[in-house]
């Protein structure tokens, strides 16, 4: 938690929620107010992170090609990290202080830890049985009161696959997209933990998951209730924002979990991650955000961003996209594999996301495909920029870019050493550090987490 005080940034969140809670007393009695505000306890935030970094040794990776996550590339470079932080990044002339463990990076590549902005690990864990279906509170079209962290099962075996095969060190778990307002996300460190609090990324802001289009209208329209159309989607959203504005204006409102989340959005403390496929709907959402005075941080899936990439650049909204998923539903019919490259070309922000327990294991390959599809239509994007799509850009859209997402002195030592160019299919994560602690080593079968669920089962401890 000391990291927060050092870096500022999203730490303000805790204060705001505490203020909200304090403002929620209806009686006006100060003592009752305190008694009724568990969120404002000494810890400062409810369900607070208990994550602490694991021990590591001062480490120097020497001679590798470095993609720093911020668009920089250093050949034959040196990365130094110690005490959980990146200490220095430079070329071969960078002096290696005494006491550092040297790792030969010759022929290898270094990137920041991979970040997935859109995952359902833990809230739709494997085994994918009905008893594990905890991602959609599909009982009302607006459920901003639910928090994804209260669904996350830390024993989901998917976390370990994302680490070992994908080099994923940070991921955002979102509620599903059945609802217009699906609830709060949680950002996790990809470390095995007995509790979800032990995975929570200290100081990461919350996001509100919102969804456009087919899903909400299908789920609720199918039950004969609102919304059953896209215009119904907007009407319900706008009515709910009006409620939130009224709640925000109240001097001493009753506590209301749903409204607390929405006020957090209106005050800019909670980000918006908006599932939305079609260009025309994204444009309408941007107008709705203007109408009520909030910002969309990223459109997720966004298969038609290429049609309005100029508008997205003007609004400074990221598009979190797949490389080449298409056609599985009507609103994905105009998906094209050049989407990411065309967004980038217009100067708008690209994030490659997974939304999938398999895809999260290969975000580097997805980014490479999207880069190559751009190249074939004449859009050349540097390798180091492509790596930012799965590192710093994701961190930016999640509000954690001051803390991780690039290899810069003082940032968290979330580091992947790849045994070759991560934009090649023939490369694998060789070693993965989270906050400077070695959490995976391709050559050490013991340095590989196994979930409780897999103990005593066929294949326990197998490479996966």
């Amino acid at each position, binding site marked *: 938690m000391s990291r927060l005080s050092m870096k500022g940034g999203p730490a303000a969140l805790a204060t705001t929620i505490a203020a909200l809670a304090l403002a929620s007393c209806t009686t006006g009695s100060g003592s009752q107010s305190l008694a009724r505000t568990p969120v404002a306890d000494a810890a400062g935030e409810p369900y607070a992170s208990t994550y602490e970094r694991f021990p590591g040794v001062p480490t120097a990776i020497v001679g590798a090609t470095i993609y720093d996550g911020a668009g920089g590339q250093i050949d034959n470079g040196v990365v130094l990290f110690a005490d959980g932080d990146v200490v220095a990044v430079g070329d071969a002339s960078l002096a290696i202080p005494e006491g550092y463990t040297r790792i030969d990076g010759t022929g290898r590549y270094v990137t920041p830890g991979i970040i997935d902005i859109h995952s359902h690990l833990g809230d739709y864990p494997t085994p994918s049985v009905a008893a594990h279906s905890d991602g959609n509170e599909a009982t009302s079209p607006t459920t901003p009161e639910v928090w994804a962290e209260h669904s996350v099962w830390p024993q989901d075996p998917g976390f370990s696959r994302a680490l070992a095969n994908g080099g994923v060190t940070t991921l955002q778990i979102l509620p599903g997209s059945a609802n217009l307002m699906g609830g709060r996300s949680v950002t996790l460190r990809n470390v095995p933990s007995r509790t979800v609090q032990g995975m929570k990324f200290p100081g990461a802001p919350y996001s509100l998951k919102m969804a456009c289009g087919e899903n909400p209208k299908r789920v609720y329209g199918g039950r004969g209730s609102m919304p059953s159309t896209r215009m119904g989607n907007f009407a319900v959203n706008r009515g709910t924002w009006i409620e939130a504005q009224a709640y925000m204006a109240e001097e001493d409102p009753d506590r209301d979990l749903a409204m607390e989340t929405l006020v957090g959005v209106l005050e800019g403390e909670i980000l918006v991650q908006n599932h939305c496929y079609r260009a025309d709907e994204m444009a309408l959402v941007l107008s709705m955000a203007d109408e009520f005075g909030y910002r969309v941080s990223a459109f997720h899936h966004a298969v038609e961003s290429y049609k309005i990439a100029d508008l997205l650049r003007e609004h400074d909204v990221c598009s979190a996209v797949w490389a080449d998923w298409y056609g599985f539903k009507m609103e994905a019919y105009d998906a094209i594999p050049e989407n990411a490259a065309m967004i980038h070309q217009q100067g708008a922000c690209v994030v490659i996301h997974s939304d999938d327990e398999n895809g999260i294991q290969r975000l580097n390959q997805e980014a490479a495909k999207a880069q190559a599809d751009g190249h074939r239509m004449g859009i050349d994007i540097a390798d180091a920029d492509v790596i930012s799509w799965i590192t710093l850009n994701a961190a930016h859209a999640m509000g954690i870019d001051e803390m991780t997402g690039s290899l810069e002195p003082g940032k968290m030592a979330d580091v992947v050493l790849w045994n070759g160019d991560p934009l090649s299919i023939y490369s694998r994560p060789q070693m993965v550090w989270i906050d400077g602690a070695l959490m995976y080593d391709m050559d050490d079968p013991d340095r590989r987490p196994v979930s409780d669920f*897999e103990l005593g089962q066929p294949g326990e401890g197998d490479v996966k």
Partner: protein
Amino acid sequence: MSARLLLGAALVALAAPAAAQDVAITGATVALGDGSEPIENATVVVQGGRVVAAGSGVAVPAGVPTLDGSDMWVTPGLFASLTSLGLVDVDAVSESNDLDADDSPFSAALDVSPVINPNAQDFAYSRAGGVTRASVTPEAGASIFAGQGALVDLGADYDAVVQPRAFQLIEMGERGARLAGGSRTSAHALLRNALHEAGSFGEAAQLRGGSSSGGSTVVGVDSRRIGSTDRSGDVLLTRFDAAALVPVVSGEQKLYIRVERAADILAMLSLLEEFPELDMVLVGATEGWMVAGQIAAAGVPVIAVALRDLPVSFEQLAATQSNVGRMVDAGVMVGIGGYDSSGDHPRNLPQQAGNMVALNWVTGATGLSWGEAFASITSVPARIAGMDDAGVLAAGAHGDLVLWDGDPLEVSSAPVRVFIEGVEQSLENHQTRLRERYRSLDESELPRGYEW
């Protein structure tokens, strides 16, 4: 807008099958698809729609149009197993989706061959990704018997189906248990009953269903069944369905069985003792590596998804990406096929195969060599489907060629030209047209809607 006239010819409608053509490519890196490693500076010759020769030191016969393959790779077209090509426009648009028939009174008799639509965009997308042949399968809707799949080529013509009724697909795992009435016990009883029924039915009636050997006898519909759709909750077969299983029991039609867990795989292999004529293929086989020796000894091939590594269900607890490699090492014939997510399209088969090569780096993992990996998406699945003359560049094989701008297993590579039976194919489709329309967002003169 200069593209408009060109497109008129390329896209408006599919033509009659073009005459087989001759083509040669020289100076390319050639992968034969037979499991061997790539050959540099090699030549491929196709005449009359068939491969004449491929390899080093091959002479191009006089008069054959020749392309310079420098800086390119040439391979056989990919063979995609168990696709929905031509059955679906948009998965979630039910009106456009003929994959399963869950309200139908029929099961084993369902036959995809007359309903495959080569104008479906997925045909064009997959072709542009280098897929030239595929098996197309129905999915089980109301019974463990999904119905009969077909083999197709992806040429831009209406002559897609090259072999109707190539196989019957049945579900014998968790899904089969649910479809059969709630338990694997019911699926097993149903399967054995059906095979016995079909066996005696075939003997008594002297009937033959459509089969791979071409002798396709029409089986009359039982008049008592006409107009009857009252089959919900009934797991037994109509006479029509029983007739469709006759060639399965006799081994004339392949039987694809989807099972995942090791115990279910062994149970299916033991079915061969009861019904020795069955021409069985295992589909899925996520835990196949645990009983790879038995699968190999039974001589049963497998079609598996390469990258499954999560315990998605209790029948896939031992899932690992090493499944394919371990089965291949045990001597099992394994084709990579099957699609777990919306990202696993047929044209992404090279990504699945390429990951098998990279897997060899990981201590304790078993991957594939490059040659094995490429064969697992070309010649091996073609052979499993019953086509020995596809997915391979060997004299006499179909002249299905893909020219790639790099190593076909590398994620950054893509086809630049595709030939089927020696006929060059259009690589245009809905996606490429959208890309060109939105290449620029300039609307200072006219809306983008006029750009086509």
